[in-house]
């Protein structure tokens, strides 16, 4: 298997897990776009052009999973932060449960 093939496989799973990872970060508390990108870097490395998080956040808002609030900063103007709604928390809890099952089954396939 070539490096290119491995790279492609890894790209795909990182892309697939992104919406779940965004929900999981929001589940830890209110966060603005840059904070979200920082948190995701630990998991996804530098794989994401950080601007692409904004359509995702907009989609969560539109689907009622998150709401945007303006957080007052110690210095400078207020910043837009995102907070999970009750519906978002329910979806996250269900996603976490399904992920655990999926991960367990996937683990059984590993050599």
């Amino acid at each position, binding site marked *: 298997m070539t490096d290119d093939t491995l790279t492609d496989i890894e790209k795909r799973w990182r892309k697939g897990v992104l919406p779940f990872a965004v929900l999981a970060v929001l589940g830890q508390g209110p966060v603005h776009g840059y904070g979200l990108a920082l948190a995701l870097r630990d998991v996804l490395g530098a794989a994401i*052009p950080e601007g692409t998080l904004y359509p995702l956040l907009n989609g969560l808002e539109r689907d009622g999973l998150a709401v945007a609030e303006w957080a007052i900063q110690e210095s400078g103007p207020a910043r837009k932060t995102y907070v999970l709604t009750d519906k978002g928390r329910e979806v996250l809890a269900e996603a976490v449960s399904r992920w655990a099952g999926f991960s367990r089954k996937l683990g059984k396939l590993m050599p």
Partner: protein
Amino acid sequence: MTRLTDIADAGARAELAAYFAKVDRLLAPLPEETAAETRGELEAHAVDLFTEEGSAAAALARLGDPVDFLPDLVAEKLRSRAARSFSPVHVLAALATSARVGISGLVLSTLAGAGYALAALALLMGTARFLGQKSTGVFRLEDGRYFVGFGETLGGTDVLGLWFVLLAYAAAAALYLILTLAFGRVRLRKPSRQDIRSMPG
């Protein structure tokens, strides 16, 4: 520090300003307040990245080319606005903007546009009949088949009479409402190259 104007380095500020001129062009179809809000978010993010990276080029590389993510965001915001207001002006703006977001956007706008054209036709037919054009309506031909006439008729018996006006208006309104709600809920998927740029280090 959340604004470009907070950056002391004039060269970096100019580089970021050029990027945000592009952002402003892409956000132009949005209502002023929404565009300003989105720009403000991106600007704060860019300034944070600049503080972290120490270079405007590195910060903007991390943020990504706005052409890769803003058209999709703008089109989605316009579709959501259309679904909230049901304004034909907002629907037209959403159709035009969505059509420019890749092949999937063009297909979506074409299909939705065809649906709206059908709704407009129903409205036109209802109005024509209301204004006395008796060749517009549903007719039963002598061989038992039905024919929907608009401006010309093959003869036959007028089945609905003036009820046609009511039904045509109801069909137009229902089609418009359903299409607009559905159009507002569609989420387009961007090509993968725009979601994931490269492997992490």
